[in-house]
């Protein structure tokens, strides 16, 4: 019968696993994306989980999802809409109806589509598909729960434990749909449950049963084949943005020869950075879970003063609490990396959703003239490079650096070629041992003439005791000063020090058509969507280019030149125009089109293409 299966070859496909937050959908999605990556596909993933830890079972608020985008060519986003949806219950189906393509395949567990299940998801009829207007989807209706229970009788598990394996049955079914060999998945399950071999075997059995079930019913649906593509040779792993950020900091500390210190307070969606770095005692990382956000940054400032590469991780509300302390790091001219994993705001806002609304806060959210470096990461894997740069600039230029990521890239993951640290730029702190001025005796605020960076004298070093503080200091003597001329000079010097960093960062690159009729400008975590929009428009024969900013303050030196080259420029961002306004202040005469969405959800490529096309035609 196998030869009758209709195999569709696609370049890209989007699969969404969805169920109750206890159904193990995140694990299912992760395994599937990993084995697809190993198979040679490009992947991008995004978990979409509820803010509530465990909402009532089977209800709409308890639905947890994991989306995987697979492709044979470069994939940057988890995709707009799903080609395949695995819905473990009616609530999952209902919540995801807006994420479905019209001809999608929907896999359901019929055992959990009974009357009581439909009631919990607030269906009023007994045909959820009809009720949702899903006439054109192909449904694979499998009694997953009962088949899992039957298949696992030999293991002697209790009912509850057996049913926990139903996500693996679903995974097996999806593996069949996508012609994925099961060996890698089995291997991962053995690793995951290394200490519980019986559970590992039960999961593997459910996985195999699911696959075989798919094989037996194959005639009724089409299966997908995604060609594998040849990636650059090397070792790869799957990494999400928070993990990559943690690794980037570790790499920077390693390269600089400094101990890494993280002071942090739990906050969604940044806490995984604290989790990851707390595990890394093997690499000598010190973490302090502080009593509040302010203590999170203050312990880091103390550690920086004491000679560590110090960082603090947070999200928007936490950044607000940290602002006074950031000002202290600015005036004390101490290195510090502040990671803001942006989420929906204002106030508590939407903790698990993604936005780019903290840009102005990062740039200007402090009292006084307090310039610092702002960097934004563009993809999950780019978080590594961005964190590395944040660490590098902070210790080399004795300044706080705010690294902006967002919930989307922090939780989203993609395949990552393990970095070769030898190829990363050196990190050389400006230690006080570099001070060589023979005319003037060393003081805490003496500076390198070229970079204006002060020298780092670490406690314990004989001959360099000094006092720092939040009060303005004299340019020459480093003592407290309220002299008006001196204050003007110090304000200007702190600004000039940051401005000069433009000499030490890469120039802005433009990708796409050299003679583009439209330049798309973006920053941070929207890179993937903007890139795909550009690619789609190019396929339609349009001439488009993309300039995506990683360095926000200072801007790359060629910014004005790049922006001035194009007839039309659109700045697209997930806020009300913060970057566009910032650029207008920095580049005279710049007046871009704007595309702004603040929904807590990633951009939709199709919408971008539509809006950008309108701008081109305007």
């Amino acid at each position, binding site marked *: 019968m196998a030869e009758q299966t209709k195999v569709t070859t696609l370049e890209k496909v989007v699969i969404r696993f969805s169920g109750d937050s206890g159904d193990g959908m995140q694990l299912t999605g992760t395994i599937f994306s990993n084995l697809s990556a190993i198979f040679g596909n490009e992947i991008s993933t995004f978990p979409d989980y509820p803010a509530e830890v465990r909402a009532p079972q089977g209800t709409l608020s308890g639905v947890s999802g994991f989306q995987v985008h697979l492709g044979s060519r470069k994939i940057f986003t988890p995709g707009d809409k799903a080609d395949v949806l695995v819905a473990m219950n009616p609530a999952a189906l209902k919540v995801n109806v807006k994420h479905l393509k019209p001809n999608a395949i929907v896999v359901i567990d019929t055992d959990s589509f009974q009357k009581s299940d439909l009631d919990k998801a607030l269906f009023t009829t007994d045909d959820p598909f009809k009720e949702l207007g899903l006439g054109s989807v192909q449904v694979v209706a499998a009694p997953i729960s009962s088949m899992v229970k039957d298949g696992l009788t030999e293991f002697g598990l209790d009912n509850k434990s057996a049913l926990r394996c139903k996500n693996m049955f679903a995974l097996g079914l999806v593996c069949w749909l996508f012609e994925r060999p099961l060996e890698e998945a089995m291997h991962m399950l053995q690793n995951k449950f290394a200490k519980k071999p019986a559970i590992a075997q039960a999961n593997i059995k459910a996985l195999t049963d699911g696959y075989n079930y798919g094989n037996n019913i194959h005639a009724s649906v089409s299966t997908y084949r995604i060609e594998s593509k040849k990636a650059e040779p090397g070792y790869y*792993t*799957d990494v999400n943005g928070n993990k990559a950020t943690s690794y980037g900091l570790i790499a920077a500390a390693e390269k600089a020869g400094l101990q890494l210190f993280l002071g942090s307070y739990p906050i969604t969606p940044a806490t995984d950075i604290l989790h990851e770095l707390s595990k890394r005692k*093997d690499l000598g990382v010190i973490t*302090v879970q502080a009593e509040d956000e302010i203590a999170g940054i*203050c*312990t*880091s400032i103390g550690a920086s003063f004491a000679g560590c590469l110090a960082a603090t991780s947070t999200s928007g509300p936490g950044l607000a609490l940290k602002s006074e*302390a950031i000002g202290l790091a600015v005036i004390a001219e101490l290195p510090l990396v502040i990671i803001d994993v942006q989420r929906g705001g204002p106030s508590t806002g939407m903790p698990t959703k993604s936005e780019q609304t903290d840009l102005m806060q990062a740039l200007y959210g402090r009292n006084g003239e307090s310039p610092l470096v702002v960097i934004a990461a563009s993809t999950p894997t780019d978080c590594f490079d961005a964190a590395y740069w944040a660490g590098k600039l902070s210790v080399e230029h004795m300044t706080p650096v705010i690294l902006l990521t967002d919930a989307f890239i922090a939780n989203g993951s993609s395949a990552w070629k393990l970095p070769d640290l030898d190829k990363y730029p050196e990190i050389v702190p400006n230690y006080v041992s570099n001070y060589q001025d023979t005319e003037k005796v060393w003081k805490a605020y003496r500076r390198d003439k070229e970079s204006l960076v002060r020298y780092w004298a670490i406690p314990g070093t004989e001959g360099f005791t*000094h006092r720092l*503080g939040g009060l303005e200091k004299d340019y020459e003597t480093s003592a407290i000063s309220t002299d008006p001329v001196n204050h003007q000079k110090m304000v200007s010097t702190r600004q000039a020090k940051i401005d000069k960093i433009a000499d030490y960062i890469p120039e802005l690159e433009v990708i796409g058509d050299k003679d583009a009729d439209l330049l798309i400008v973006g920053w941070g975590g929207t890179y993937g969507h903007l890139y795909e929009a550009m690619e789609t428009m190019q396929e339609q024969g349009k001439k488009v280019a993309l300039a995506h900013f990683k360095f926000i303050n200072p801007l790359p030196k060629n910014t004005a030149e790049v922006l001035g080259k194009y007839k039309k420029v659109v700045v697209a961002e997930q806020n009300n125009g913060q970057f566009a306004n910032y650029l207008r202040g920095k580049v005279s005469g710049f007046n871009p089109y704007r595309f702004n969405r603040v929904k807590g959800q990633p951009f939709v490529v199709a919408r971008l293409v539509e809006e950008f096309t309108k701008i081109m035609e305007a």
Partner: protein
Amino acid sequence: MATEEIKFQPKDYKSDQYVRWCPGCGDHAVLNCLHKAMAEVGVAPHDMAVISGIGCSSRLPYYMNTYGFHTIHGRGAAIATGVKTARPDLSVWLITGDGDCLAIGGNHFIHAVRRNIDLNIVLFNNKIYGLTKGQYSPTSDRGFVSKSSPYGTVEDPFIPAELTLGSRGNFFARAIDVDLKNTTEILTASARHKGASVTEVLVNCVIFNDGIHKKIVDKEFRADKTIFLRHGEKMLFGKNNEKGIVLEGLKLKAVTIGEDGYTLDDILVHDAHEKDNTLHMMLAMMGEDMPVALGIIRDVEGVTYDEAVHQQIEEVQAKNPTRKLKDLLMQGEIWEVK
């Protein structure tokens, strides 16, 4: 830290900065005591980090020839925690006042004490906001009249000792600015104590709260209104040590030896090292018709946070040879593309 062989003088801890506290301010005396205490302990000035928040007393780091950091209001404890956790080898001091430590910085203070991080905390208590020119503080007594409480306050104060012991503090001492010898002795002991030590110094603010501790510290009252506690010694006070403290039922009582049948044998012996803090709390709370307790009220050894953090790193490293990011990544879920 420097070896004990090198001897330091008090002047080695003195910076070249002109001390800007008001003439007659109690802070001058504490600064001098700290210089002396450090010379006594013998930590090299460059191995000391003196951290402070905001307020009159928080200017102190500028007057120390050590590494110093005058930070932001209330956050000194958190910053000092970072310094000490990063560098347990440094002698880390936190200089703070009643407003800085117990109002805006209360949260950081109780958590630093709870963690038992090895900080030497010197709490200058003048029961007033001096730098902002005279508002009541969290240690001002109920009914205290100040610029911000013209009709008297309607709130009860914190007793620093009660807060410290309530935060599971292992070292609490109380000193007075006018008693240089004992203050130096207490600061020396605080420096030598492993773990968070809190020394409350009752200081006088000559401008905004002159004489606030007068009824306790003035020579004419001191012998009868205070008791200086020393570990292992009987709790005696009075001009001729004729009075003492006894325990009656669940209460402390001040008695005169030879009166009402009390003899020297009835007088309690101070045990600062007792783990149970019940009696320490009772001693620390004495006042009104009892003498105010000075000296080291509690001094108990415990595991310090900074040591435990580094010990945990060593334990993990002893079991796991991974030291480089590259090695860590190669041990994870990886695949090779050839």
